[in-house]
């Protein structure tokens, strides 16, 4: 294990406060996109033992809908917007201005709506991180560039396993930053996961206030 890439509790708190800025920006973008007040809050900034990763999104063999985006630039890794089926289909109803429960399956239209939502949330989040991360090496670009989202319907545990694989290849504990969503005082069953690569974890560990 590369001990230099393990973050202290203080560094995790500092990262949490930086990622809150990302969540605030994504809240504003999502509220505009959905026409409804939505708040994103950082619920966890934690390093998790790889043997505990499988259950982080609930029952291991539950199928979830996920839009994945990789990002590159100063930091590299994965952003995953994960929905329970019911929550994802309800999002599609909201965007298509239909009563909740109208949509019952993931057709191309619902997948596209989910990916567009992920794109809006992800870009706002990454732009805010680019702005609020302390300046790095002058040779590095500060911008974080996302890939287009890909939609998947997956087992929760398989999804998490694949997402953390790059970190797991060199570490036994993996860093996950988990963001939850709230609308009308109720928690939405959506989760945004930020999963940096091992190199980016090293970069994050060098951040100071």
């Amino acid at each position, binding site marked *: *294990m590369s001990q230099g890439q393990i973050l202290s509790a203080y560094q995790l708190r500092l990262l949490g406060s930086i990622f809150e800025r990302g969540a605030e920006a994504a809240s504003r973008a999502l509220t505009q996109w959905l026409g409804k007040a939505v708040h994103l809050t950082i619920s966890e900034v934690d390093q998790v033992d*790889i*043997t*505990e*990763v*499988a259950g982080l999104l609930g029952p*291991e*063999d539950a*199928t979830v809908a996920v839009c*994945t985006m*990789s*990002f*590159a630039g100063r930091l*590299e*890794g*994965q952003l995953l917007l994960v929905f329970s089926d019911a929550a994802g289909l309800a999002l599609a109803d909201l965007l298509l201005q239909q009563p909740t429960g109208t949509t019952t399956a993931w057709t191309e239209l619902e997948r596209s709506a989910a990916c567009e939502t992920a794109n809006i949330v992800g870009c706002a989040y990454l732009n805010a991180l680019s702005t609020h991360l302390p300046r790095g090496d002058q040779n590095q670009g500060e911008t974080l560039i996302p*890939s287009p989202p*890909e939609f*998947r*319907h*997956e*087992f929760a*545990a*398989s*999804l*998490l*396993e*694949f997402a953390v*694989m*790059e970190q*797991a*290849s060199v570490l*036994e504990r993996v860093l996950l930053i988990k963001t939850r969503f709230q609308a009308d005082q109720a928690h939405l069953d959506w989760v945004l996961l930020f999963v940096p*690569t091992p190199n980016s974890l090293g970069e994050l560990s060098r951040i100071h206030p």
Partner: protein
Amino acid sequence: MAEAGGAGSGELFVTMGKWAVAPAPTLIRTLLGSCVGVVLYDRLAKMGGVAHIVLPDSRGDTSLPGKYADTAIPAMIADFDRQLGRKSLPRLVAKIVGGASMFQTSTPGMNIGKQNHEAVERILGSLGIPILARELGGEAGRRLTLDTSSGTVSIRIPGGTDHEI
């Protein structure tokens, strides 16, 4: 039994970097993405095991033996030997599952699933353990269930139904 619960407890779930060995009647489950699940089975003893392998090579790291192909497979065989009270190797057969590449990562070309598969094939070959079935690659995760009563391995992909290998 090691790593994932008590023997004969009915149903065991194996997480990343762990393994389980149990006698019949036990269902041993795991969920795989790019990791490879190695199933070993002794038909006469009706004892089976599943390892959830994350990486091909430990490079001497012994802190989490279930994580690597070169340490997990010998550790699982040692568990068979301990539970059976004899050398299990001559009667073991294998099935291997997993190694998917599920979505684009920020490190293109880092196909760990394929590397895991190749390492597992090489290690099982060097031990003389016949591989009876394989289901590897693709873009979907898999739920693997071993029934130690029969040695049957059932696989389900998201949205699909169980099929046996």
